[in-house]
């Protein structure tokens, strides 16, 4: 098994775990964490695709992955604020 296949297998396992968590868990915080695991799997797949057997990696998927991480952080923060707000309004 090449490094690329191993990375892709782990990436898709993470993607599937996150997907299942997103659909099967009811608690909003769990859903948000699952969504993060899922997006991490997608980003790891990009890094796997950038790998080259005997050359430096393709920089474009790496740049896409950085962009994806930053947007995922911003979305997660907004999701956490939404969860706090929903709780605060429900407890009122």
């Amino acid at each position: 098994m090449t490094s690329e296949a191993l990375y892709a297998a782990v990436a898709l396992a993470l993607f599937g775990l996150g997907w299942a968590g997103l659909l099967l868990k009811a608690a909003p915080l769990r859903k948000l964490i699952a969504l993060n695991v899922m997006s991490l799997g997608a980003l790891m797949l990009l890094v796997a695709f950038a790998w080259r057997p005997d050359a430096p990696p393709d920089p474009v998927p790496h740049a896409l992955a950085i962009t994806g991480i930053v947007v995922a952080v911003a979305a997660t923060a907004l999701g956490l604020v939404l969860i706090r707000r929903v709780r605060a309004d429900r407890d009122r």
Partner: protein
Amino acid sequence: MAAAFLGGFIALACLALFAAVLVAPAAPGLEAAVAAALPETGVTNPVTGVLLDFRGYDTLLEVAVIALAVIGAAALAPRETPPAPLAGPVATAAAAVLAPAIVLFSGYLLWTGGARPGGAFQAGALLAGGLVLLEITGSRPWWRRGLSGRLGAAAGTAAFLIAGLGVMAATGRFLDYPGPDWGYAVILAIEAVAAVSVAVALSALFAAEPGDGRPGEGAP
């Protein structure tokens, strides 16, 4: 029962995707095109060249997304009493020792991004860690109070836009940097402002206080 079905479906879908990855023909990436155009950008790290030059629009909008998240968090955050600061002797001493080192190393990450792995987002994330450390040990930072915090979070997008419009004077096209020397200077300037702006924005997202800056007031 439904959960088992769904789990099985997801497992099958991921296996099918893995098979697709294995049998997909090896496609040539964009590394040759990037390597051919990289001397024009002034930077030698191809990832930085792609982020700040070839995909400049994408990165501009990415910085704008962070600023939008800050605005959204400020609009939605519930009014709650903020947690008591972690003010023990170990925490305060650790923050005092670590904060200058974090500032120094994030400056290094910003500078080295032109040639090696590093850059605005890495430097900004590290600096944000430093700001969060200061914040949880009780020093409420002035740069997050009121207007300065909002301006700080928006500064990255503003600097990117101004630089993009500024180079139009020389090249006639938005975000098309003129030549390697100026390109390097413009990229580094954008990255420096963006790093600080990302750090301020991420620390504001960490605290997630209501936008009027009065977190505890009127709490139910």
